[in-house]
Structures are given as structure tokens and as C-alpha cells.
């Protein structure tokens, strides 16, 4: 998985120019239930990664999220 592309996809979901690995997800204004759903859908569609909502809620930074998706990638 290309993490640079993943951060771009995440930025698009969050309506931002860019997302850095060290950014804390809950600090983003747009990190809400819609964004969580969008990430679930993106991980499934782009990476074949089936992630549970509670797994997403337990990660802190964008890098943690990228690692989670990578670990579930088929």
C-alpha cells in the first residue's frame, strides 16, 4: 500500500489540502461519523480491507489509521 496515496485519499474525505502522518484524527473538524463511514468505504473499495468501526475509533493518528488499513489489506 502506498501511504502517500492513502493520505491523499484521507485528505479528500476530510476536505483538506493535505493530511500528515502525525496528525491526530479527532483534531480535524471534519472527523465525524460521515468521515468514519467514508474511510470504511474507501478502505474496502481501494484496498479490499474490511475494517470495523470500533477499530477506526481506537486509532489516534493518521499514521495509525494507515497502519490499520495496511494490516487488513487483502
Amino acid at each position, binding site marked *: 500500500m502506498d501511504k502517500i496515496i492513502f493520505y491523499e485519499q484521507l485528505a479528500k474525505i476530510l*476536505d483538506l489540502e493535505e493530511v500528515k502522518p502525525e496528525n491526530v484524527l479527532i483534531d480535524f*473538524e*471534519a472527523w*465525524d*461519523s*460521515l468521515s*468514519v*463511514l*467514508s474511510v*470504511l*468505504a474507501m478502505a*474496502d*473499495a481501494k484496498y479490499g480491507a*474490511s*475494517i*470495523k*468501526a*470500533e477499530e*477506526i475509533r481506537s486509532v489516534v493518528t493518521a499514521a495509525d489509521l494507515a497502519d490499520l488499513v495496511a494490516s487488513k489489506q487483502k
Partner: protein
Amino acid sequence: MNFTFHRKRITGVLVVVPENERSFSEDMKNFNFPEARSLKLKEVMGFDKRRVVEPGVCVSDLAVFGLEQLFNRGLLHRDEIDALILVTQTPDHFVPATSSIVQGRLHLKPDMLCLDISQACAGFVVGLMQTFMLLEQESIKKVVLINADVLSRKASPKDRNIYPLIGDAAAITVVERDSEDSVIHASLKMDGARGHALTIPAGGLRMPATLETAILEDVGDNNLRAKDHLFMDGAAIFNFVQTEVPPLIEGLLATAGVSKDAVDYFLCHQPNRFMLQKLADKMKVPHAKMPNNVVERFGNNSGVSIPTVITYDLGDRLLREKLQVCLAGFGAGLTWCAMLVSLGKLDFNLITEYK
């Protein structure tokens, strides 16, 4: 598990929606939520208008109104109803069954069967299966299936995850024997162990409704909800649908020996536009074959959502022609089910307003 039914057909569908319309943009002004994100929600999820009952309106009110319309228009005769199946999770009372209340209010004949089924978003397919089984009896020639819910009455006005998207409605579907040698395939799965993702905690006997269960509690994200209210773990439900529904439908089509291309429409429960688009993408079905526009006009109206797609999207077309459709319902229970059926040449296919 798989089911097969022979020589059964749907002959008419009437959907009853309350006259009272609410707007997502207006409702969202009551929440402490950035307007830009509200707009995004509207754009992505398709939330816009929805129909909800006035205070005090119950399931039997919508059902009686719809049946009277059919009687008055000569589309159904009260004496020919041999069974009345009513699917709801918001019954008028614990006792008696709401189907019996409807029978009584309409003075239907005593020589008939009234039966309530507790199902929500999967309730149309589950209800149809029951009607088909009853039609195996010689004494039963015509079954009326009623799907109805007034879940807006169970939604916390302070819960952004539920309140701005719930709709109320009822559907009346007439099912009869088919003179042609037709086959209907269905597939269904249930998992009660995951049922907590969609629940109303209080109001039953496990946790009776009290002053305490009516207290609004802070459940995070600036949302307030009481134990009397409907709770939905939206992200868990999204996962459930994306994971379970595509293999169920693919298995059903394989069993029936029908290719995806041979299905004219996939008529699914309508939680929101986003989920249906993602479901279509995952199943590699063109978006045009899986309508997703009910929630923007009527809200998520539980077990009435599939009849709403049938009437709103395919209306008059189903009076003239027959289409091969795959119905799919998924929700509380958890329950997920699909049915492959030749639908059309209906006697009526209408939406009416409850006043």
C-alpha cells in the same frame, strides 16, 4: 438459508406516507453542528425531505387509511382478505396484535387469519415469505401484507444520527396465487448476537419505560438520547451491509441460475444514498440498476422502503410490464434477506398521502 416458492405473485402495492414533510436543512439548524458538514451530509447521504406522522398517529391509523382507500377505489374488497400479515416494530399496543386492531376497525370477516411479525428494514421480504406460505392453504386465496412503522416517534430530536433521517409510512401489498408456473427464490440469514447495533433499550418488559428511561443522556458528539429512543450504530450497520449483503445476493442468484445482468433492478432497503452506492459498487452493479432516491424524498421508512422504491421509482411501468427484480432487506435483528421475483402487471402501484 434458501427458500423456494411456486405459483405466487404480488398483484398490487399501495404506499401511505404522512402529509407532514420535514426538511433536513431545517432540522439540522437545531443541532450544534457546522453548516458545511450538514451540507456535505445532505450531498453524500442524500438526506433532504422526509415524511413523519403528527403526534399520536399509530401504525393502525396508517394501515386502516390505506386499506379504506383500496376499498373505496374498488381495488380490493374487504370480504376477500383471507389473511392479514402486519409487519412492524412500533405496534399500537403489546396486546392485542396490531393486525387484529386493523381487522376490528375495518369490520373484516372473522373467517381470516391476523398475524403480527416483528421485523424492521428486512420486513418486506420476511413478510412476503409468510404470505407465500399461507397461500399454500386452499382456504387462503388473497393475503394482505402490511408493512408499517412510526419510528419518528422513537427517535430522539436531539440525536443527529437518527432524527433527521427517519421517515414514517405504511405499505399495503396484495399477494395471490399465480396461474402461471412461476418460481420465486429467496435467501435469508439472521444473527441475533449482533442485534445490539439497532435497538430501543427501554419500553419492553426487560426495561419498562419510566421517568428515568425518558431522561436525555449525553451520548457523545453533541448528541442526546434517552433509553426510550432508537439507537443505531451507523458504522457497524454499514460494515454489516457491505460484508453480508453482496455474498447473500450472489448466492441467491447462483441458486436461481440467474445472472446479474438478467436482473432488471436491485430494489433494496433505503438507509441512505451513500450505503446503496457503495453496495452497488461492491456488487459491480450499475447505480442505475439499484435505485437510491427514496431517502431524499421520504426518509428511511424501515420495512416500507422497498414498497416505496417499487411505487415511487417504477410506478406505472409495473402496471404495463413485468420486470425481473431482486429485493434485498437488511437491518434490525440483525436480519438480511433477498428475493428474486418477477414483478409487474400489477392491478395498482400507488403512493397516497395520509391526512
